C-alpha cells in the first residue's frame, strides 16, 4: 500500500482523500472535475481572476481588459465525423474567449506527440487548425512541440491558449445570472458526444451525426449587439453537456434554474443514440454551442439575432432563472412533472438497465 498523500498544506483536502490517484472521472466535467479545481488548483494558485472560474479570465493590462484562456484536448479518436482534434483545439479556446465577451485575437499551440504518430496525421491536424483559425479570424502566433515515448500521449495531445480584448463596459460571467433571466441555447445539443461515440470501439453505430465543432465568435458578436448589457452569462458547454454548465452557473450565481425538457433542440439521431445507450442528451458533450442568460426584456431580440446566424439557426429558449431552490437545476418533464438535473460524478456511462 502506498503512503497516504500529505494534505497538510491544502485548504480543503477532504473530498480528495477518497481518490488518492486521478481517475478518468476527474476529466469528465462533472463533480470530480469541479472538486479537483476547487480543492487542489484554486488553493495552490490563489488569485482573484482565477477564483471567478469563468471560461476565460479577464485581467487588466496596459489600460485594456485582456481576456486569457487555455484548454487542452485529449480526444480519441483524433479524427471523427465532423472534425479532428485540430478543430477542437482552435474552436475551443476561441469560444472560451468569446463567451467571456472578448474578441479573440491570438492563439498559442502546444503539442505533445506520441512516438509513431504518422506525419500525415500531424499534417492533417495542423491543416485543420489553420483552417479553423482562418474561419475564426484568429492567428496562431507561437507554439511548441514535444515528443513522448510510444504508449503515452494517445497519438497527440494539444493545448491551446488564447488572448482577446474585452470592452470596458462588458460584464459577463458565471456569477451574473439573475432571477427572471431567460436561458437560450444556440442549437441542437449532444451532437459532438454522439459523433465521438459512433466511432468508439464497442459502441459503434452508423449515423450521419457530425461533431458540431465551430468557432462561435461571430454568432456571439451578433447576439451581444442585440442584447448589450442585458446579457448576463454566456458559456460554451463542452464535456458534461448543457446540464453541467447550467449547474455550474446556477451554483456560481446562487440562483435556481428551471428547464423545459420539451424545448431542448435535439437531433432525432442524437436522441436515438442516447436512448440506445441509456444516456441523457443534456449530459452529452458539445463543441459548437453557446448558452446565453439574458434579461427577459431583450430575450426575443437576442433569440432572433442568434437565429439569423448560420451557426444559430436552431436556437431555442430552454428555460429561465428563478430565485427558488438556489444552486439547483430543475426540469419539467414531458409528462408535466418535475425532476432535478443533478451534476454527474464523472462521465455518463452506457447502461443496460
Amino acid at each position, binding site marked *: 500500500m502506498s503512503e497516504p498523500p500529505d494534505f497538510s498544506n491544502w485548504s480543503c483536502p477532504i473530498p480528495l482523500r477518497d481518490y488518492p490517484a486521478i481517475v478518468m472521472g476527474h476529466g469528465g466535467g462533472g463533480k470530480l472535475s469541479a472538486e479537483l479545481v476547487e480543492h487542489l488548483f484554486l488553493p495552490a494558485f490563489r488569485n482573484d481572476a482565477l477564483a471567478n472560474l469563468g471560461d476565460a479570465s479577464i485581467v487588466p493590462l496596459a489600460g485594456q481588459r485582456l481576456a486569457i484562456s487555455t484548454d487542452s484536448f485529449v480526444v480519441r479518436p483524433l479524427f471523427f465525423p465532423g472534425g479532428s482534434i485540430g478543430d477542437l483545439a482552435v474552436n475551443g479556446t476561441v469560444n472560451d474567449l468569446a463567451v467571456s465577451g472578448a474578441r479573440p485575437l491570438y492563439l498559442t499551440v502546444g503539442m505533445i506527440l506520441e512516438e509513431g504518430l504518422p506525419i500525415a496525421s500531424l499534417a492533417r491536424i495542423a491543416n485543420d487548425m489553420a483552417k479553423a483559425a482562418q474561419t475564426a479570424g484568429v492567428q496562431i502566433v507561437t507554439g511548441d512541440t514535444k515528443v513522448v515515448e510510444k504508449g503515452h500521449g494517445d497519438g497527440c495531445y494539444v493545448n491551446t491558449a488564447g488572448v482577446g480584448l474585452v470592452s470596458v463596459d462588458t460584464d459577463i460571467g458565471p456569477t451574473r445570472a439573475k432571477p427572471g433571466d431567460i436561458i437560450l441555447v444556440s442549437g441542437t445539443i449532444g451532437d459532438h458526444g454522439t459523433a465521438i461515440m459512433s466511432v468508439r470501439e*464497442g459502441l459503434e453505430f452508423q449515423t450521419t451525426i457530425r461533431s458540431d465543432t465551430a468557432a462561435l465568435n461571430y454568432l456571439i458578436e451578433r447576439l451581444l449587439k442585440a442584447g448589450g448589457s442585458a446579457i448576463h452569462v454566456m458559456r460554451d458547454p463542452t464535456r458534461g453537456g448543457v446540464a453541467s454548465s447550467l449547474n455550474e452557473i446556477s451554483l456560481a450565481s446562487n440562483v435556481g434554474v428551471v428547464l423545459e425538457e420539451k424545448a431542448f433542440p435535439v437531433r432525432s439521431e442524437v436522441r436515438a443514440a442516447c436512448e440506445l445507450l*441509456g444516456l441523457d442528451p443534456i449530459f452529452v458533450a458539445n463543441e459548437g454551442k453557446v448558452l446565453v442568460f439574458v434579461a427577459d426584456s431583450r430575450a426575443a431580440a437576442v433569440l432572433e439575432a442568434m437565429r439569423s446566424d448560420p451557426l444559430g439557426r436552431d436556437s431555442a429558449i430552454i428555460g429561465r432563472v428563478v430565485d427558488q431552490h438556489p444552486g439547483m437545476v430543475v426540469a419539467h418533464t*414531458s*409528462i408535466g412533472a418535475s425532476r432535478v438535473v443533478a451534476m454527474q460524478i464523472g462521465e455518463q*456511462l452506457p447502461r443496460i438497465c
Partner: protein
Amino acid sequence: MKYLDEFRNGEIAQSLAREIRRVTTRPWKIMEVCGGQTHSIIRNGIDQLLPADIEMVHGPGCPVCVTPLEIIDQALTIAAQPGVIFCSFGDMLRVPGSEKDLFRIRGEGGDVRIVYSPLDAVQIARQNPDKQVVFFGVGFETTAPANAMAVHVARQHGLKNFSALISHVLVPPAIAAIMQSPRNSIQAFLAAGHVCHCLGFHQYPALTERFRIPIVITGFEPLDILEGIRRSVLQLEAGEARVDNAYERIVTFEGNLPAQKLLEQVFEIVDRAWRGIGVIPASGWQLRPEYREFDAEHRFQVSGIHTVESPLCHSGEVLQGILKPNQCPAFGKECTPRKPLGATMVSSEGACAAYYNYGRFISADQLTHV
C-alpha cells in the same frame, strides 16, 4: 422514434393519471419490480401524477444492485490480473466491492473495457488471442439469452481465451421471497416487461394464486407504467388477484422459444445470494458443467473470497421495499453517488441513486411549485 415517442405523450399521461385518481378509493402499495421501471418513474416524475393513496415501492429489479458482493470482488480480482482484458456493461464499473470498484482497477493498470453487447467481448477475444478475455455476465432473464449466446458462440469458434463470470438472477423467486417476508406490505406487482419477453409469464399465475396479489406485466415508458398502475388499482379495488398483460405489444404468455432453448442448453438453475437480501433458493443461473471451461470463476480460481459490506448500508431493506432511500440514515450523508456505500446508490437504476440524482431529498412540493 416510433413505438417510443407515442408512449411518452404528455396529454395521454395526464389523462391516464386522472383515470387512476378516479378509480382509487383507498390506499394501495404497489411494487414495480424492475430497476428500469424505477428509473422511469423517478426520472419522469410519474409518481408526482399519482394520487396520494398510491404508494410505489421500488423493488430489487436492478441486477447491478443485487449482484452479490463476492462476485464483485471476484470480478475485481480477475480484472486486476495482468494479461486479462475485462469486459463489462457500463453500469457495473462504479459498483463498490469490499474495497474498490472496476474504475479503480482500471486506474491501477487493469485493462477494463465497456462493451455494449456480450458479442463485442467475444470479438475482442478473437482479436486478442494472447490475452485472456473475461466478460462480466450479469442480468436478469432479459440479458441471459444474450450472455448465453456469447458463451455458445465462443464455444463454436473454439476460443480458448474467452470466459464469462456469470451472475444471473431470476425475478419470480424474488417476488415469492418478498411476499414471504414477515415485514412485507406489498399488495400488487408491476412485473418487469422485458424480463417476461424471455420466459413469458406462465410462472406468474402460481404466484397470484399463492399470494392472492395482482401481477400486471408492465412496460417502461410513462404511458406503459401508468397503465400498469391503473390495471393494478382496478384489480385491487375489485378484490381480484390475477395476471394481466399490459405490455401486449412485446410480451406473450409463452415467451421466446429459441431463447429458452439455448438457455436450457447453457445454464442451470442454482440458489443465488442477492446482495442486501440474502440467499433466495433457485433464483439464479450458472453455466452448466458442459460449459465449465468458459466459467471464469473456475478458470481463475476465485471462489472463497472474503467480503466486507458497509454496516451503514441499508440497500437490502431498500431493495425489498421496506425502506425508502431517503429514509436511510446514511442517504445523502455518508452515502452519495460520489462515495456510494452500496450498489443501490451506484447503479443508475438503483432506487437510492434515482432518488438522489432526481432530487428526492427535497420535497415534491419544492419541486413542483413552478
